[in-house]
């Protein structure tokens, strides 16, 4: 399973904080890979609706693009910080923390 993650939007644009993250589960420790795959599965990721158009109301909200490739399937969703699907939020939290780790290590 491969995951592409890209945060966008927010109060300002910070080049260093908006870098895309790519994860290949094959290169993760087994328990972490299993955890990620479970999050994707529990969120019913491949059954989630396509990204909605940009909302007319609101400003400065963060958006997150998550794209997952697995076993020949590929799907992309767009989330905001008001996402109510708890599994999806757990996946978002994992990816956000992972991106932060990558940032710190760079």
């Amino acid at each position, binding site marked *: 399973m491969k995951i592409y993650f890209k945060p*966008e*939007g*927010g*109060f*300002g*644009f*910070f*080049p*260093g*904080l*908006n870098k895309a993250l790519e994860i290949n589960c094959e290169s993760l420790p087994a328990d972490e890979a299993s955890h990620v795959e479970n999050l994707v599965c529990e969120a019913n990721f491949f059954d989630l609706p396509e990204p909605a158009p*940009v*909302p*007319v*109301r*609101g*400003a*400065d*909200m*963060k958006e997150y693009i998550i794209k997952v490739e697995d076993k020949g399937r590929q799907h992309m969703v767009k989330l905001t*910080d*008001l*996402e109510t699907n708890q599994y999806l*939020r757990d996946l978002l939290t994992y990816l956000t923390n992972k991106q932060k780790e990558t*940032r710190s290590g760079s």
Partner: protein
Amino acid sequence: MCQQNKPHRHSIFCILPPYILRSIAENGSKEQRSMALHVLSGDTTFRSLRAVPRFAAELIKKRPLAFMLAGDKQRTIFSANNAQALPGVIVRAEGSPATGDPAIDEAYDGLGLTYDFFWNVFNRNSIDDEGMPLNGTVHFGANYSNAFWDGQRMVFGDGDGELFNRFTISLDVIAHELAHGVTEDETQLIYSSQSGALNESVSDVFGSLVKQYALNQTAEGADWLIGAGLFTDRVQGVGGNPAVLRSMKEPGTGYDDPVLGRDPQPGHMDDFVNTFEDNGGVHINSGIPNKAFYLAATNIGGYAWEKAGRVWYETLLDSRLRSNDKFQRFAQLTVENAKRYKVEAEVCDAWTKVGISVPMII
């Protein structure tokens, strides 16, 4: 409604229709005003209850007008208690004392100062000019590093403590978010590409003006910074200055940091950034109209809200401004509106200096 357990008041207040009570509340003596407001508040409660089934959606947006006079604000601060659900629980309502929680009190005070600015300077009664209640949610999310306008309320995170402090720390950030509501109410500038950058710039303009108004600063004396104090000491600024989010005076000099990167804002059309990121660069290319406003304000001199701010405000309200307009069209309208204040040459010069030529006579 007359009730036995309420303090005595003249019986005339019990039978007068609301429009007369409102007139007394506006024009009567101090005692008459107080009594009329007291009656109106109780009366409106019951009128509102009767109206709820029909007008529930409107009541969420509009406050009952009989409750208060234009120029009175109605703030409610909620706390999300570090969850990501809105609106959260009420932690401070209008007129209640300070809580000692900086985020709550800064949001309350900041929304109040912003309301006062729009009312005193432009005679605008809140976000929708109809007295819309000001709702803010603080402590949104855990270590959440953002502030946003969701179409109904202003939402503020506590920051992660590593890069960002709490987002209520800067008055201009609070005012920026409220100004998004004003823009949305007036023109709905589409939040993408140049119209989105104008949307962002208008919020920075009024964010900065609210701060200048609160500090009684002239255009020459103001720092023209957005988000001073928002970054922690760990974030590196430019030229030995503390890091800030944006500079309207010198776009692109807010920060230059190993983690955040370099402030990408241009201050001239020659450096316009074509990008798909950031909704087409709404927080990036806003540096160009930001600088134009700074130049216009300093060209004119004095308090920036008196002429330059008024020109920008009237442009925002100008029926000729369309939701997908670009910098050129916005610039033309500012020059046209500037004629009313005899500052069209100063405004025209400001746009020219950022690479946007506007004919003086349209």
